[in-house]
């Protein structure tokens, strides 16, 4: 099934891309996708572990199972700002 992946900030720089459409097996989880991307795309090795993930714009844990047409975003840490 087809899903869309979004990268931002330093991860987009490392991926040299902000968006990626990918075929994955039914049953693929967010955590499984993360491992596959780190393995298959050299720039991403070690980069996605520090990211939160969102599925269809809502934060989702690694166990979340993906569906056809899902939009999966990897969200790096934010600055937080000086209080």
């Amino acid at each position: 099934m087809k899903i869309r992946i979004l990268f931002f900030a330093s991860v987009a720089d490392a991926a040299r891309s902000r968006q990626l459409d990918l075929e994955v097996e039914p049953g693929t989880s967010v955590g499984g996708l993360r491992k596959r991307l780190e393995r298959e795309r050299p720039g991403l090795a070690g980069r996605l572990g520090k990211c939160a993930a969102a599925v269809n714009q809502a934060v989702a844990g690694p166990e979340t199972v993906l569906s056809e047409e899902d939009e999966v975003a990897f969200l790096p840490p934010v600055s937080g700002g000086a209080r």
Partner: protein
Amino acid sequence: MTRVGPEPIVLEDALRAVEDPSCGGIAVFLGVVRNRHEGKRVTKIHYDAYPEMANAVLARIEAGLRRTHGAKAVYLAHRTGLHRVGDASVVVAVATPHRGEAFAACREGIERIKSELPVWKKEYGPGGAVWKEEVALRKPARRTSRRPAARSRRT
């Protein structure tokens, strides 16, 4: 009312958005780009964002401020793209009947934006540019428990 995008932040827009004849207090927080960060000179800032999600997060924060602090009118905006020193990047404006609630809601609004909003900051200085990725993005305090619909099913 919420807004994420490259347009400059205009305070008068925020004020107009929170006009409410039942409210006696309006608290506003404006975040602006400053010329130093942790002792280093800053010349400009670039904000990257996931706009669709950021707008959804802002809407959830607005709903929270209305529920928790009795805010009658709320305006939340974050600008994206390139900012110079002195440019406003974020604004929180809240109108409430009394002033205590206005301060509390405004403070909560900016704290939630800083920790929940999918917006990233790249700082430019004499030594180059660096993404400030320091705090794991926090899952919003409240969200719908329903699993959100996939792309094709939304609009």
